[in-house]
Protein backbone atom coordinates (compact mmCIF):
# COMPACT_ATOMS: atom_id res chain seq x y z
CA UNK A 1 0.00 0.00 0.00
CA UNK A 2 2.83 2.38 0.94
CA UNK A 3 4.55 1.59 -2.36
CA UNK A 4 1.50 2.68 -4.31
CA UNK A 5 1.24 5.88 -2.33
CA UNK A 6 4.92 6.49 -3.01
CA UNK A 7 4.37 5.89 -6.71
CA UNK A 8 1.59 8.48 -6.72
CA UNK A 9 3.71 10.87 -4.66
CA UNK A 10 6.63 10.47 -7.03
CA UNK A 11 4.39 11.10 -10.04
CA UNK A 12 3.02 14.26 -8.42
CA UNK A 13 6.54 15.36 -7.44
CA UNK A 14 7.85 14.93 -10.96
CA UNK A 15 4.86 16.69 -12.42
CA UNK A 16 5.44 19.48 -9.87
CA UNK A 17 9.02 19.98 -10.98
CA UNK A 18 7.97 19.96 -14.62
CA UNK A 19 5.30 22.52 -13.83
CA UNK A 20 7.86 24.75 -12.17
CA UNK A 21 9.90 24.54 -15.32
CA UNK A 22 6.85 25.38 -17.41
CA UNK A 23 5.92 28.22 -15.09
CA UNK A 24 9.30 29.88 -15.57
CA UNK A 25 8.72 29.51 -19.30
CA UNK A 26 5.38 31.21 -18.85
CA UNK A 27 6.98 33.88 -16.70
CA UNK A 28 9.60 34.44 -19.33
CA UNK A 29 6.87 34.67 -21.94
CA UNK A 30 5.10 37.33 -19.87
CA UNK A 31 8.35 39.27 -19.53
CA UNK A 32 8.75 38.85 -23.28
CA UNK A 33 5.42 40.57 -23.93
CA UNK A 34 6.62 43.64 -22.05
CA UNK A 35 9.96 43.37 -23.79
CA UNK A 36 8.12 43.29 -27.08
CA UNK A 37 7.02 46.87 -26.51
CA UNK A 38 10.63 47.90 -25.98
CA UNK A 39 11.68 45.95 -29.05
CA UNK A 40 9.14 47.59 -31.28
CA UNK A 41 9.97 50.99 -29.83
CA UNK A 42 13.68 50.44 -30.46
CA UNK A 43 13.07 49.25 -33.98
CA UNK A 44 10.88 52.26 -34.82
CA UNK A 45 13.21 54.86 -33.29
CA UNK A 46 16.21 53.15 -34.83
CA UNK A 47 14.62 53.57 -38.23
CA UNK A 48 14.37 57.28 -37.44
CA UNK A 49 18.08 57.11 -36.50
CA UNK A 50 17.37 58.80 -33.12
CA UNK A 51 17.09 55.49 -31.27
CA UNK A 52 20.13 53.84 -32.85
CA UNK A 53 21.95 54.09 -29.52
CA UNK A 54 19.40 51.77 -27.98
CA UNK A 55 20.06 48.95 -30.43
CA UNK A 56 23.17 47.46 -28.80
CA UNK A 57 21.65 47.84 -25.33
CA UNK A 58 18.49 46.11 -26.46
CA UNK A 59 20.56 43.33 -28.01
CA UNK A 60 22.42 42.87 -24.72
CA UNK A 61 19.10 42.75 -22.86
CA UNK A 62 17.89 40.12 -25.31
CA UNK A 63 21.09 38.14 -24.76
CA UNK A 64 20.49 38.23 -21.04
CA UNK A 65 16.94 37.02 -21.50
CA UNK A 66 18.02 34.08 -23.66
CA UNK A 67 20.96 33.47 -21.33
CA UNK A 68 18.46 32.85 -18.56
CA UNK A 69 16.45 30.49 -20.76
CA UNK A 70 19.63 28.67 -21.81
CA UNK A 71 20.55 28.04 -18.18
CA UNK A 72 17.05 26.77 -17.40
CA UNK A 73 17.05 24.43 -20.41
CA UNK A 74 20.55 23.21 -19.59
CA UNK A 75 19.44 22.49 -16.01
CA UNK A 76 16.35 20.59 -17.23
CA UNK A 77 18.12 18.49 -19.87
CA UNK A 78 21.39 18.13 -18.01
CA UNK A 79 23.29 19.14 -21.14
CA UNK A 80 25.10 22.44 -21.56
CA UNK A 81 23.63 24.90 -24.01
CA UNK A 82 26.39 27.27 -25.03
CA UNK A 83 25.92 30.78 -26.30
CA UNK A 84 27.86 32.53 -29.04
CA UNK A 85 27.65 36.25 -29.73
CA UNK A 86 29.84 38.70 -31.53
CA UNK A 87 31.66 41.06 -29.15
CA UNK A 88 29.91 44.43 -29.02
CA UNK A 89 32.88 46.76 -29.00
CA UNK A 90 34.04 49.87 -30.79
CA UNK A 91 32.20 53.05 -31.72
CA UNK A 92 28.41 53.29 -31.63
CA UNK A 93 27.87 52.72 -35.39
CA UNK A 94 30.18 49.69 -35.19
CA UNK A 95 28.30 48.33 -32.22
CA UNK A 96 24.95 48.86 -33.94
CA UNK A 97 26.21 47.14 -37.07
CA UNK A 98 27.60 44.19 -35.12
CA UNK A 99 24.44 43.85 -33.06
CA UNK A 100 22.21 43.83 -36.13
CA UNK A 101 24.40 41.51 -38.16
CA UNK A 102 25.20 39.07 -35.36
CA UNK A 103 23.66 35.65 -36.24
CA UNK A 104 23.45 35.02 -32.49
CA UNK A 105 21.15 37.99 -32.02
CA UNK A 106 19.01 36.96 -34.99
CA UNK A 107 18.73 33.48 -33.58
CA UNK A 108 17.64 34.98 -30.28
CA UNK A 109 14.98 37.01 -32.05
CA UNK A 110 13.67 33.90 -33.81
CA UNK A 111 13.46 32.06 -30.52
CA UNK A 112 11.91 35.12 -28.93
CA UNK A 113 9.09 35.29 -31.45
CA UNK A 114 8.24 31.59 -31.19
CA UNK A 115 8.70 31.41 -27.44
CA UNK A 116 6.13 34.16 -27.01
CA UNK A 117 3.68 31.55 -28.31
CA UNK A 118 4.83 28.15 -27.06
CA UNK A 119 6.24 29.57 -23.83
CA UNK A 120 2.68 30.47 -22.87
CA UNK A 121 0.81 27.68 -24.68
CA UNK A 122 2.58 24.74 -23.05
CA UNK A 123 1.99 25.87 -19.46
CA UNK A 124 -1.65 26.52 -20.33
CA UNK A 125 -1.92 22.95 -21.63
CA UNK A 126 -0.42 21.73 -18.39
CA UNK A 127 -3.29 23.20 -16.35
CA UNK A 128 -6.07 20.84 -17.54
CA UNK A 129 -3.63 17.94 -17.45
CA UNK A 130 -3.15 18.60 -13.75
CA UNK A 131 -6.88 18.38 -13.05
CA UNK A 132 -7.47 15.25 -15.09
CA UNK A 133 -4.21 13.78 -13.87
CA UNK A 134 -5.03 14.18 -10.21
CA UNK A 135 -8.38 12.49 -10.72
CA UNK A 136 -7.39 9.77 -13.19
CA UNK A 137 -4.04 8.91 -11.68
CA UNK A 138 -5.52 9.21 -8.21
CA UNK A 139 -7.75 6.25 -9.12
CA UNK A 140 -5.48 4.47 -11.62
CA UNK A 141 -2.30 4.72 -9.64
CA UNK A 142 -3.44 5.35 -6.07
CA UNK A 143 -6.34 2.86 -5.96
CA UNK A 144 -5.71 0.40 -8.78
CA UNK A 145 -1.97 0.28 -8.25
CA UNK A 146 -1.01 0.98 -11.84
CA UNK A 147 1.59 3.32 -13.17
CA UNK A 148 0.63 6.96 -13.45
CA UNK A 149 -0.33 7.79 -17.04
CA UNK A 150 -1.62 11.33 -17.18
CA UNK A 151 0.65 13.28 -14.83
CA UNK A 152 3.84 12.30 -16.71
CA UNK A 153 2.38 14.16 -19.67
CA UNK A 154 3.30 17.38 -17.88
CA UNK A 155 6.93 16.26 -17.94
CA UNK A 156 6.61 15.63 -21.66
CA UNK A 157 5.31 19.19 -22.04
CA UNK A 158 8.37 20.51 -20.19
CA UNK A 159 10.57 18.27 -22.35
CA UNK A 160 8.92 19.73 -25.42
CA UNK A 161 9.63 23.26 -24.21
CA UNK A 162 13.26 22.34 -23.56
CA UNK A 163 13.66 20.55 -26.91
CA UNK A 164 12.20 23.42 -28.94
CA UNK A 165 14.19 26.00 -27.06
CA UNK A 166 17.29 23.95 -27.47
CA UNK A 167 16.78 23.56 -31.17
CA UNK A 168 16.15 27.28 -31.54
CA UNK A 169 18.96 28.47 -29.30
CA UNK A 170 21.77 26.06 -30.15
CA UNK A 171 24.37 28.16 -31.93
CA UNK A 172 25.65 26.85 -35.27
CA UNK A 173 29.08 25.21 -35.10
CA UNK A 174 30.42 28.08 -37.13
CA UNK A 175 29.09 30.67 -34.71
CA UNK A 176 30.56 28.72 -31.81
CA UNK A 177 33.94 28.58 -33.49
CA UNK A 178 33.79 32.31 -34.11
CA UNK A 179 32.84 32.93 -30.51
CA UNK A 180 35.62 30.67 -29.25
CA UNK A 181 38.09 32.49 -31.44
CA UNK A 182 36.85 35.81 -30.17
CA UNK A 183 37.28 34.56 -26.61
CA UNK A 184 40.78 33.34 -27.38
CA UNK A 185 41.69 36.68 -28.96
CA UNK A 186 40.37 38.42 -25.86
CA UNK A 187 42.46 36.13 -23.64
CA UNK A 188 45.58 36.63 -25.76
CA UNK A 189 45.09 40.36 -25.73
CA UNK A 190 45.04 40.29 -21.95
CA UNK A 191 48.08 38.02 -21.61
CA UNK A 192 49.98 39.97 -24.23
CA UNK A 193 49.26 43.19 -22.39
CA UNK A 194 50.48 41.42 -19.26
CA UNK A 195 53.62 40.28 -21.04
CA UNK A 196 54.32 43.76 -22.35
CA UNK A 197 53.78 45.23 -18.90
CA UNK A 198 55.98 42.56 -17.30
CA UNK A 199 58.65 43.19 -19.89
CA UNK A 200 58.45 46.92 -19.28
CA UNK A 201 58.71 46.44 -15.52
CA UNK A 202 61.67 44.13 -16.07
CA UNK A 203 63.45 46.69 -18.25
CA UNK A 204 62.86 49.42 -15.66
CA UNK A 205 64.18 47.16 -12.91
CA UNK A 206 67.33 46.38 -14.90
CA UNK A 207 67.82 50.05 -15.73
CA UNK A 208 67.46 50.99 -12.06
CA UNK A 209 69.81 48.22 -10.94
CA UNK A 210 72.48 49.32 -13.39
CA UNK A 211 71.95 52.98 -12.68
CA UNK A 212 72.06 52.73 -8.90
CA UNK A 213 74.60 49.93 -8.79
CA UNK A 214 77.36 49.33 -11.29
CA UNK A 215 77.09 52.71 -12.98
CA UNK A 216 77.29 54.65 -9.72
CA UNK A 217 80.24 52.56 -8.58
CA UNK A 218 82.11 53.14 -11.82
CA UNK A 219 81.62 56.89 -11.41
CA UNK A 220 83.00 56.68 -7.87
CA UNK A 221 85.89 54.57 -9.12
CA UNK A 222 86.73 57.04 -11.86
CA UNK A 223 86.67 59.86 -9.31
CA UNK A 224 89.07 58.03 -7.05
CA UNK A 225 91.48 57.33 -9.89
CA UNK A 226 91.33 61.02 -10.79
CA UNK A 227 92.05 62.02 -7.20
CA UNK A 228 94.85 59.46 -7.02
CA UNK A 229 96.46 61.05 -10.08
CA UNK A 230 96.39 64.45 -8.38
CA UNK A 231 97.78 63.09 -5.14
CA UNK A 232 100.41 60.96 -6.90
CA UNK A 233 103.29 63.46 -6.58
CA UNK A 234 102.82 64.83 -3.11
CA UNK A 235 100.99 62.21 -1.15
CA UNK A 236 101.89 58.59 -1.98
CA UNK A 237 100.03 57.23 1.07
CA UNK A 238 96.88 59.00 0.04
CA UNK A 239 97.34 57.73 -3.53
CA UNK A 240 97.63 54.17 -2.37
CA UNK A 241 94.52 54.51 -0.22
CA UNK A 242 92.56 56.01 -3.12
CA UNK A 243 93.68 53.23 -5.48
CA UNK A 244 92.68 50.60 -2.92
CA UNK A 245 89.25 52.18 -2.70
CA UNK A 246 89.03 52.34 -6.49
CA UNK A 247 89.78 48.64 -6.75
CA UNK A 248 87.12 47.85 -4.15
CA UNK A 249 84.62 49.88 -6.14
CA UNK A 250 85.57 48.04 -9.33
CA UNK A 251 85.08 44.66 -7.68
CA UNK A 252 81.73 45.64 -6.23
CA UNK A 253 80.63 46.92 -9.62
CA UNK A 254 81.57 43.56 -11.14
CA UNK A 255 79.67 41.68 -8.46
CA UNK A 256 76.60 43.78 -9.06
CA UNK A 257 76.84 43.34 -12.81
CA UNK A 258 77.01 39.61 -12.30
CA UNK A 259 73.81 39.70 -10.27
CA UNK A 260 72.05 41.80 -12.89
CA UNK A 261 73.16 39.45 -15.66
CA UNK A 262 71.96 36.43 -13.72
CA UNK A 263 68.59 38.11 -13.29
CA UNK A 264 68.25 38.81 -17.00
CA UNK A 265 69.38 35.48 -18.39
CA UNK A 266 71.40 33.05 -16.28
CA UNK A 267 74.68 32.44 -18.15
CA UNK A 268 74.56 28.71 -17.49
CA UNK A 269 71.44 28.52 -19.68
CA UNK A 270 73.51 29.77 -22.58
CA UNK A 271 76.33 27.38 -21.77
CA UNK A 272 74.45 24.22 -20.97
CA UNK A 273 70.88 24.62 -22.10
CA UNK A 274 67.86 24.13 -19.86
CA UNK A 275 68.61 20.55 -18.88
CA UNK A 276 72.20 21.27 -17.89
CA UNK A 277 71.16 24.42 -16.05
CA UNK A 278 68.42 22.59 -14.13
CA UNK A 279 70.87 19.84 -13.18
CA UNK A 280 73.21 22.52 -11.88
CA UNK A 281 70.35 23.99 -9.84
CA UNK A 282 69.55 20.55 -8.49
CA UNK A 283 73.17 19.93 -7.54
CA UNK A 284 73.40 23.28 -5.78
CA UNK A 285 70.07 23.13 -3.97
CA UNK A 286 71.30 21.26 -0.91
CA UNK A 287 68.52 18.71 -1.44
CA UNK A 288 68.65 15.26 -2.90
CA UNK A 289 67.03 16.08 -6.22
CA UNK A 290 66.05 13.62 -8.90
CA UNK A 291 65.89 15.13 -12.40
CA UNK A 292 63.84 13.42 -15.10
CA UNK A 293 63.92 14.61 -18.65
CA UNK A 294 61.49 13.54 -21.36
CA UNK A 295 61.94 14.50 -24.97
CA UNK A 296 64.56 17.13 -24.33
CA UNK A 297 68.18 16.67 -25.13
CA UNK A 298 70.70 16.63 -22.38
CA UNK A 299 72.67 13.84 -20.87
CA UNK A 300 70.36 10.93 -20.09
CA UNK A 301 71.84 10.10 -16.69
CA UNK A 302 72.75 10.23 -13.87
CA UNK A 303 69.28 10.73 -12.53
CA UNK A 304 70.72 11.90 -9.24
CA UNK A 305 71.59 15.57 -9.68
CA UNK A 306 73.81 15.68 -6.65
CA UNK A 307 76.81 13.63 -5.81
CA UNK A 308 80.24 13.92 -4.27
CA UNK A 309 82.94 15.99 -5.93
CA UNK A 310 84.60 12.86 -7.10
CA UNK A 311 82.64 9.88 -8.28
CA UNK A 312 79.26 10.04 -9.90
CA UNK A 313 79.10 13.77 -10.57
CA UNK A 314 78.74 14.82 -14.19
CA UNK A 315 82.49 15.16 -14.51
CA UNK A 316 83.15 11.81 -12.92
CA UNK A 317 81.95 10.26 -16.10
CA UNK A 318 84.31 11.50 -18.72
CA UNK A 319 82.06 11.28 -21.73
CA UNK A 320 83.27 10.44 -25.17
CA UNK A 321 86.43 12.09 -26.38
CA UNK A 322 85.98 14.41 -29.29
CA UNK A 323 86.70 17.81 -30.63
CA UNK A 324 87.03 19.92 -27.52
CA UNK A 325 86.46 23.19 -29.23
CA UNK A 326 83.15 22.63 -30.89
CA UNK A 327 80.16 23.63 -28.81
CA UNK A 328 78.43 20.64 -27.34
CA UNK A 329 81.34 18.49 -28.42
CA UNK A 330 82.65 16.33 -25.67
CA UNK A 331 81.70 16.42 -22.05
CA UNK A 332 78.84 14.31 -20.80
CA UNK A 333 76.75 17.36 -19.97
CA UNK A 334 76.68 18.39 -23.59
CA UNK A 335 73.51 19.41 -25.32
CA UNK A 336 73.95 17.91 -28.77
CA UNK A 337 74.12 20.28 -31.68
CA UNK A 338 70.77 20.60 -33.42
CA UNK A 339 68.76 19.52 -30.39
CA UNK A 340 65.50 21.41 -30.26
CA UNK A 341 65.64 24.15 -27.68
CA UNK A 342 62.81 26.19 -26.32
CA UNK A 343 62.91 29.94 -26.97
CA UNK A 344 65.21 31.80 -24.59
CA UNK A 345 62.32 33.44 -22.73
CA UNK A 346 60.68 30.05 -22.12
CA UNK A 347 63.94 28.50 -20.93
CA UNK A 348 64.58 31.44 -18.63
CA UNK A 349 61.07 31.24 -17.17
CA UNK A 350 61.41 27.48 -16.67
CA UNK A 351 64.78 28.00 -15.02
CA UNK A 352 63.44 30.60 -12.62
CA UNK A 353 60.44 28.43 -11.74
CA UNK A 354 62.69 25.49 -10.86
CA UNK A 355 65.09 27.76 -8.96
CA UNK A 356 62.25 29.32 -6.98
CA UNK A 357 60.55 25.99 -6.27
CA UNK A 358 63.77 24.33 -5.12
CA UNK A 359 64.70 27.35 -2.99
CA UNK A 360 61.29 27.22 -1.32
CA UNK A 361 61.56 23.48 -0.84
CA UNK A 362 64.98 23.83 0.78
CA UNK A 363 63.99 26.80 2.93
CA UNK A 364 60.45 26.06 4.05
CA UNK A 365 59.30 22.55 3.33
CA UNK A 366 61.65 20.68 5.63
CA UNK A 367 62.09 18.14 2.84
CA UNK A 368 65.42 16.56 2.07
CA UNK A 369 64.28 15.05 -1.20
CA UNK A 370 62.71 16.58 -4.27
CA UNK A 371 62.22 15.76 -7.91
CA UNK A 372 62.14 17.81 -11.07
CA UNK A 373 60.63 16.64 -14.31
CA UNK A 374 61.05 18.39 -17.63
CA UNK A 375 58.87 17.21 -20.43
CA UNK A 376 58.56 18.32 -24.00
CA UNK A 377 55.13 17.86 -25.57
CA UNK A 378 53.99 18.75 -29.05
CA UNK A 379 53.31 22.39 -28.30
CA UNK A 380 54.55 23.02 -24.80
CA UNK A 381 57.18 22.57 -22.16
CA UNK A 382 55.82 20.98 -19.02
CA UNK A 383 57.75 21.02 -15.77
CA UNK A 384 56.91 19.52 -12.44
CA UNK A 385 58.72 20.17 -9.19
CA UNK A 386 57.77 18.00 -6.25
CA UNK A 387 59.12 17.93 -2.73
CA UNK A 388 58.38 15.47 0.03
CA UNK A 389 58.10 18.16 2.68
CA UNK A 390 55.40 19.27 5.04
CA UNK A 391 53.29 21.07 2.42
CA UNK A 392 50.89 23.86 3.30
CA UNK A 393 52.51 26.33 0.95
CA UNK A 394 50.29 28.99 -0.55
CA UNK A 395 50.69 32.11 -2.64
CA UNK A 396 49.94 34.42 0.24
CA UNK A 397 51.99 32.73 2.92
CA UNK A 398 55.66 31.91 3.20
CA UNK A 399 57.60 32.38 0.04
CA UNK A 400 54.47 34.12 -1.24
CA UNK A 401 56.16 36.85 -3.22
CA UNK A 402 58.38 34.27 -4.91
CA UNK A 403 55.37 32.21 -5.94
CA UNK A 404 53.59 35.32 -7.13
CA UNK A 405 56.60 36.29 -9.20
CA UNK A 406 56.62 32.77 -10.63
CA UNK A 407 52.95 33.05 -11.62
CA UNK A 408 53.50 36.44 -13.26
CA UNK A 409 56.52 35.22 -15.15
CA UNK A 410 54.64 32.18 -16.44
CA UNK A 411 51.44 34.09 -17.20
CA UNK A 412 53.45 36.56 -19.27
CA UNK A 413 54.29 33.65 -21.57
CA UNK A 414 50.67 32.48 -21.70
CA UNK A 415 51.54 29.53 -19.48
CA UNK A 416 49.80 28.01 -16.46
CA UNK A 417 50.89 27.30 -12.90
CA UNK A 418 49.17 24.62 -10.88
CA UNK A 419 50.21 24.14 -7.27
CA UNK A 420 48.97 21.60 -4.79
CA UNK A 421 50.34 21.65 -1.29
CA UNK A 422 48.15 19.86 1.22
CA UNK A 423 49.22 20.12 4.84
CA UNK A 424 51.53 17.19 5.39
CA UNK A 425 52.82 17.39 1.84
CA UNK A 426 53.88 16.72 -0.78
CA UNK A 427 54.07 20.07 -2.54
CA UNK A 428 53.73 19.73 -6.29
CA UNK A 429 54.13 22.63 -8.68
CA UNK A 430 53.18 22.01 -12.29
CA UNK A 431 53.94 24.58 -14.91
CA UNK A 432 53.09 24.48 -18.59
CA UNK A 433 54.64 26.90 -21.02
CA UNK A 434 53.37 27.06 -24.62
CA UNK A 435 56.30 26.80 -26.93
CA UNK A 436 57.12 26.19 -30.56
CA UNK A 437 59.95 23.71 -30.96
Amino acid sequence: MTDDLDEMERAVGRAGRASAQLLTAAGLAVVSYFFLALLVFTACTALLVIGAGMVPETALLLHRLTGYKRRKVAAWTGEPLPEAYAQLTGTLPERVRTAVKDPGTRQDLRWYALHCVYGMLLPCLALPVWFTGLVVDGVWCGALRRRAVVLPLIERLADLDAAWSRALLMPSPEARRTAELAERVEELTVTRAGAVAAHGAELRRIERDLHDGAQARLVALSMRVGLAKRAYENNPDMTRKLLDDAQDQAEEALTELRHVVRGIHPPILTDRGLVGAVRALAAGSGLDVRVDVVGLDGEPAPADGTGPAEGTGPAGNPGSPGDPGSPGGTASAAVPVGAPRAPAAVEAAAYFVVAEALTNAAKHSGADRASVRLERTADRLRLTVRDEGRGGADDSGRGGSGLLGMRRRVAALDGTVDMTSPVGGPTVIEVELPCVW
Partner: protein
Amino acid sequence: MRVVIAEDNALLREGMVLLLSSAGHEVVAVAATGPEVLPTLLEHRPDVAVLDVRMPPGFRDEGLRAALAARREIPALPVLVLSQYVEETYAAELLGGGASGVGYLLKDRVGRVDEFLDALDRVASGGTALDPEVVTELLTRRRDDPLESLTPREREVLHLMAEGQDNATIAKTLVVSDRAVSKHIGNVFAKLGLPPSDSGHRRVLAVLAYLKKD
Protein backbone atom coordinates in the same frame (compact mmCIF):
# COMPACT_ATOMS: atom_id res chain seq x y z
CA MET B 1 106.98 29.90 -15.86
CA ARG B 2 105.82 29.15 -19.36
CA VAL B 3 102.18 30.03 -19.69
CA VAL B 4 99.56 29.53 -22.42
CA ILE B 5 96.58 31.90 -22.36
CA ALA B 6 93.20 31.20 -23.94
CA GLU B 7 91.06 34.32 -24.00
CA ASP B 8 88.98 35.70 -26.84
CA ASN B 9 88.66 39.27 -25.63
CA ALA B 10 91.68 41.14 -27.01
CA LEU B 11 91.64 43.72 -24.24
CA LEU B 12 91.71 41.13 -21.49
CA ARG B 13 94.19 38.98 -23.38
CA GLU B 14 96.67 41.82 -23.71
CA GLY B 15 96.15 42.80 -20.09
CA MET B 16 96.85 39.27 -19.00
CA VAL B 17 100.01 39.04 -21.13
CA LEU B 18 101.21 42.32 -19.67
CA LEU B 19 100.46 41.22 -16.14
CA LEU B 20 102.14 37.83 -16.48
CA SER B 21 105.22 39.17 -18.27
CA SER B 22 105.65 41.90 -15.68
CA ALA B 23 105.66 39.18 -13.04
CA GLY B 24 108.49 37.42 -14.86
CA HIS B 25 106.43 34.72 -16.57
CA GLU B 26 106.73 33.86 -20.21
CA VAL B 27 103.54 33.75 -22.28
CA VAL B 28 104.52 31.22 -24.93
CA ALA B 29 101.24 31.23 -26.86
CA VAL B 30 97.74 32.61 -26.88
CA ALA B 31 94.58 31.00 -28.22
CA ALA B 32 91.63 33.18 -29.18
CA THR B 33 89.05 30.52 -30.04
CA GLY B 34 87.93 27.26 -28.51
CA PRO B 35 89.19 24.88 -31.20
CA GLU B 36 92.69 26.39 -31.03
CA VAL B 37 93.12 25.64 -27.35
CA LEU B 38 93.97 21.94 -27.31
CA PRO B 39 96.41 21.98 -30.28
CA THR B 40 98.16 25.00 -28.74
CA LEU B 41 98.52 23.22 -25.42
CA LEU B 42 99.73 20.02 -27.05
CA GLU B 43 102.29 21.96 -29.03
CA HIS B 44 103.70 24.10 -26.25
CA ARG B 45 103.19 21.94 -23.15
CA PRO B 46 103.21 24.94 -20.78
CA ASP B 47 103.82 24.90 -17.04
CA VAL B 48 100.32 26.22 -16.58
CA ALA B 49 97.37 27.10 -18.83
CA VAL B 50 95.07 30.05 -18.11
CA LEU B 51 91.72 29.45 -19.82
CA ASP B 52 88.60 31.55 -20.26
CA VAL B 53 85.35 29.56 -20.01
CA ARG B 54 83.31 31.25 -22.72
CA MET B 55 84.99 31.45 -26.12
CA PRO B 56 84.12 31.46 -29.81
CA PRO B 57 82.70 29.91 -31.88
CA GLY B 58 79.79 28.92 -29.62
CA PHE B 59 80.37 31.35 -26.75
CA ARG B 60 79.27 28.71 -24.30
CA ASP B 61 81.70 26.70 -22.17
CA GLU B 62 84.37 25.89 -24.78
CA GLY B 63 87.21 26.84 -22.41
CA LEU B 64 85.98 24.52 -19.70
CA ARG B 65 85.60 21.65 -22.15
CA ALA B 66 89.06 22.37 -23.50
CA ALA B 67 90.44 22.28 -19.95
CA LEU B 68 88.83 18.88 -19.32
CA ALA B 69 90.03 17.53 -22.65
CA ALA B 70 93.53 18.89 -22.11
CA ARG B 71 93.79 17.19 -18.75
CA ARG B 72 92.82 13.92 -20.32
CA GLU B 73 95.43 14.36 -23.06
CA ILE B 74 98.17 15.77 -20.85
CA PRO B 75 97.65 14.30 -17.38
CA ALA B 76 98.59 16.63 -14.53
CA LEU B 77 98.63 19.69 -16.81
CA PRO B 78 97.93 22.56 -14.43
CA VAL B 79 94.94 24.60 -15.62
CA LEU B 80 93.56 27.78 -14.17
CA VAL B 81 90.06 28.45 -15.47
CA LEU B 82 88.76 32.00 -15.35
CA SER B 83 85.18 33.10 -15.83
CA GLN B 84 82.87 36.09 -15.52
CA TYR B 85 80.69 33.99 -13.25
CA VAL B 86 81.24 30.85 -11.23
CA GLU B 87 79.11 27.72 -11.17
CA GLU B 88 79.42 25.06 -8.54
CA THR B 89 78.73 22.46 -11.21
CA TYR B 90 81.71 23.57 -13.25
CA ALA B 91 83.93 23.42 -10.17
CA ALA B 92 82.73 19.86 -9.57
CA GLU B 93 83.52 18.92 -13.17
CA LEU B 94 86.98 20.43 -13.01
CA LEU B 95 87.77 18.77 -9.72
CA GLY B 96 86.23 15.48 -10.87
CA GLY B 97 89.53 14.40 -12.39
CA GLY B 98 91.44 15.29 -9.21
CA ALA B 99 92.09 18.61 -7.52
CA SER B 100 95.79 18.63 -8.19
CA GLY B 101 96.83 21.52 -10.40
CA VAL B 102 93.31 22.89 -10.81
CA GLY B 103 92.20 26.46 -10.41
CA TYR B 104 88.77 28.00 -10.91
CA LEU B 105 88.46 31.71 -10.27
CA LEU B 106 86.30 34.68 -11.13
CA LYS B 107 87.95 37.01 -13.61
CA ASP B 108 87.52 39.77 -11.02
CA ARG B 109 90.28 38.17 -8.96
CA VAL B 110 92.88 39.04 -11.58
CA GLY B 111 92.68 42.61 -10.31
CA ARG B 112 94.23 41.55 -7.02
CA VAL B 113 97.50 40.95 -8.78
CA ASP B 114 99.50 39.46 -5.94
CA GLU B 115 96.75 37.08 -4.90
CA PHE B 116 96.17 36.08 -8.50
CA LEU B 117 99.86 35.36 -9.12
CA ASP B 118 99.93 33.45 -5.88
CA ALA B 119 97.00 31.31 -7.02
CA LEU B 120 98.71 30.75 -10.37
CA ASP B 121 101.88 29.57 -8.64
CA ARG B 122 99.85 27.29 -6.42
CA VAL B 123 98.07 25.69 -9.38
CA ALA B 124 101.30 25.37 -11.37
CA SER B 125 102.93 23.54 -8.49
CA GLY B 126 100.08 21.03 -8.23
CA GLY B 127 97.91 22.84 -5.71
CA THR B 128 94.33 24.04 -5.89
CA ALA B 129 92.75 27.46 -6.19
CA LEU B 130 89.01 27.62 -5.78
CA ASP B 131 87.11 30.90 -5.92
CA PRO B 132 85.82 32.08 -2.54
CA GLU B 133 82.38 32.53 -4.12
CA VAL B 134 82.17 28.83 -4.95
CA VAL B 135 83.25 27.96 -1.43
CA THR B 136 80.69 30.34 0.02
CA GLU B 137 77.99 28.66 -2.06
CA LEU B 138 79.11 25.27 -0.80
CA LEU B 139 79.16 26.46 2.80
CA THR B 140 75.86 28.35 2.87
CA ARG B 141 73.66 25.79 1.24
CA ARG B 142 74.23 23.17 3.94
CA ARG B 143 71.64 23.48 6.65
CA ASP B 144 71.82 20.60 9.16
CA ASP B 145 74.80 19.66 10.70
CA PRO B 146 78.26 19.71 12.21
CA LEU B 147 79.10 22.93 10.34
CA GLU B 148 76.89 24.66 12.88
CA SER B 149 79.19 23.52 15.66
CA LEU B 150 82.19 25.29 14.17
CA THR B 151 83.30 28.54 15.75
CA PRO B 152 83.39 31.56 13.41
CA ARG B 153 87.18 31.33 13.30
CA GLU B 154 87.03 27.64 12.44
CA ARG B 155 84.58 28.43 9.65
CA GLU B 156 87.01 30.98 8.25
CA VAL B 157 89.76 28.38 8.36
CA LEU B 158 87.52 25.85 6.61
CA HIS B 159 86.65 28.43 3.96
CA LEU B 160 90.31 29.17 3.22
CA MET B 161 91.21 25.47 3.22
CA ALA B 162 88.50 24.81 0.64
CA GLU B 163 89.91 27.60 -1.52
CA GLY B 164 93.16 25.66 -1.53
CA GLN B 165 95.23 27.94 0.70
CA ASP B 166 98.15 26.47 2.66
CA ASN B 167 98.66 26.88 6.38
CA ALA B 168 101.10 29.79 6.05
CA THR B 169 98.65 31.78 3.89
CA ILE B 170 95.76 30.99 6.19
CA ALA B 171 97.82 32.21 9.16
CA LYS B 172 98.74 35.38 7.32
CA THR B 173 95.20 36.06 6.14
CA LEU B 174 93.69 35.60 9.58
CA VAL B 175 96.66 37.21 11.35
CA VAL B 176 97.30 34.31 13.70
CA SER B 177 100.24 32.01 14.31
CA ASP B 178 100.91 28.84 12.31
CA ARG B 179 100.38 26.84 15.45
CA ALA B 180 96.96 28.38 16.00
CA VAL B 181 96.02 27.50 12.41
CA SER B 182 97.09 23.88 12.90
CA LYS B 183 94.99 23.75 16.03
CA HIS B 184 91.94 25.15 14.27
CA ILE B 185 92.39 22.73 11.39
CA GLY B 186 92.63 19.85 13.83
CA ASN B 187 89.37 21.00 15.46
CA VAL B 188 87.60 21.37 12.11
CA PHE B 189 88.60 17.88 11.00
CA ALA B 190 87.59 16.41 14.36
CA LYS B 191 84.20 18.16 14.38
CA LEU B 192 83.43 17.15 10.80
CA GLY B 193 84.60 13.60 11.42
CA LEU B 194 87.23 13.73 8.67
CA PRO B 195 90.42 11.71 8.88
CA PRO B 196 93.41 13.95 9.55
CA SER B 197 95.00 14.87 6.26
CA ASP B 198 98.21 16.60 5.26
CA SER B 199 98.16 19.95 3.56
CA GLY B 200 97.78 20.24 -0.20
CA HIS B 201 95.15 19.15 -2.63
CA ARG B 202 94.24 15.98 -0.75
CA ARG B 203 93.07 18.15 2.09
CA VAL B 204 91.09 20.32 -0.32
CA LEU B 205 89.45 17.22 -1.74
CA ALA B 206 88.51 15.94 1.69
CA VAL B 207 86.98 19.26 2.61
CA LEU B 208 85.13 19.62 -0.72
CA ALA B 209 83.87 16.06 -0.60
CA TYR B 210 82.51 16.81 2.82
CA LEU B 211 80.83 20.03 1.69
CA LYS B 212 79.25 18.37 -1.34
CA LYS B 213 78.02 15.40 0.64
CA ASP B 214 74.29 15.34 1.37
